[in-house]
């Protein structure tokens, strides 16, 4: 079978969207930077990058972007890291804020403290190929997950990589590691859904 190159958008309001676009291209997808709601129409999936979720929300709250993106992630695959995981969660704490509610989980913002508490370490995951390096930067914590959520990796007893159906979220930044497995997994999810 010839593998197709799905078109995956990266929400590019602000944050590390370039790093995601690079990893997606390396993983066999075509990456498009998304800044306007009408761009969603031509995409097979979307990545919401790390950055400041509150800043991204300001833009999403204009021009019907939030409604359109909520509908998009309901029908198409999506993947969020850090701020992106916050936006995909059903409930957000510290403080509470609006979200796309695509994964049945509760996420607490800035749960590890400040930048000085940012850290890198290796964690075992359900992805094949050994432990995954995880870069945590002012990371949020997944404090609760619903019954339909598959935990793909846990750090201690906290979920850090989760999936529910066609939606995946990480509280760390696979886009900042050389290891491409998480992005390859997402590109595979998008291909399956074409």
């Amino acid at each position, binding site marked *: 079978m010839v593998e197709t190159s799905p078109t995956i958008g990266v929400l590019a309001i602000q944050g590390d969207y370039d790093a995601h676009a690079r990893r997606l291209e390396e993983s066999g997808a075509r990456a498009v930077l998304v800044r306007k709601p009408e761009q969603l129409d031509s995409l097979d999936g979307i990545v919401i990058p*790390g950055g400041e979720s509150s800043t991204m929300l300001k833009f999403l709250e204009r021009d019907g972007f939030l409604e359109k993106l909520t509908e998009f992630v309901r029908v198409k695959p999506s993947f969020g890291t850090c701020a992106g995981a916050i936006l995909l969660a059903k409930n957000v704490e510290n403080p509470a804020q609006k979200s796309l509610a695509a994964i049945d989980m509760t996420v607490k913002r800035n749960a590890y403290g400040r930048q000085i508490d940012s850290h890198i370490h290796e964690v075992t995951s359900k992805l094949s190929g050994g432990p995954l390096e995880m870069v945590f930067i002012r990371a949020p914590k997944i404090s609760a997950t619903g019954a339909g959520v598959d935990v793909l990796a846990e750090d201690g007893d906290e979920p850090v990589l989760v999936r529910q159906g066609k939606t995946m979220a990480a509280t760390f930044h696979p886009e900042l590691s050389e290891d491409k497995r998480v992005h390859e997994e997402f590109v595979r999810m998008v291909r399956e859904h074409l």
Partner: protein
Amino acid sequence: MSEKNGNNASNSLRLKTGLAEMLKGGVIMDVTDARQAEIAERAGATAVMALERVPAQIRAEGGVARMASPRMIQKIMDTVNIPVMAKCRIGHFAEAQVLEALGVDYIDESEVLTPADELHHVDKHAFKVPFVCGARDLGEALRRIAEGAAMIRTKGEAGTGDVVHAVKHMRQIVKDMRQLTVMGEEELYAQAKELRAPYELVRMVAKTGKLPVPNFSAGGIATPADAALMRQLGAEAVFVGSGIFMGDKSRCEECSNGEHRYDRGCALAQPEVAEARAKAIVRATTHFDDPKVLLETSREVSGAMKGLAVAGLPDADMLQKRGW
């Protein structure tokens, strides 16, 4: 947690530049109190820079400009959820130690404050907290990166509201980098001496055509169009200092105890005006290459800080000359 974190130098730099990656495409705003910090966060700032006086006030009032009071910075850290940065004086590693102990997310070793050392900058590798430093050309940028800076910003001329030197410095850095990419291997050794920068870093830039850390812009950005200009010239994010909260006076005339009389000679813009400016600049920074949005954002703002033309500034008043 240090053992399991793999606490080596390369991981440390990745965490430091990692936070800068998260700030790309956004606006970092200077704030002098918790109220301004709230306005900045509400307007969509990706981070705030906590300082005692914005550069325009430092210029107007003179005196020695030092690190802000930890009490004030703490209040701002308690108020907003976005990252909080603070400035230390050039070479003042003890101020940097205080800021690290306080837990700020980024330190700006800044020419806006009065330098504490006429020869040395802070050894930024010695800190766990990341640093941003100003630069006017590639050599200066690479010297700061060699000392451990995890983000570079153009110096521009802070506190003027005149974007001309932010443009000059960004163009210079981009041009210096482009030159390296077409040089032969043997030319790079001589060029490293010319740039007064470590050969290894010069070689890295020659290979990639870009800085090994994120490259932001600061120093005179005062309008949505200024922010878009800097982004189009290659800045990955912008710092806006005096441009948001300053009014058309350089110092307050009838204001006291934090009570501002906006109707009678106040140095600050009214909070609603400042918020509208902040929002417009945030939007222009994201949609920097879309003239339609730039027009909308330019319409949303009423006026800008009065400012000072850099061409008329005496040499001794140029903050950008600080740093070695």
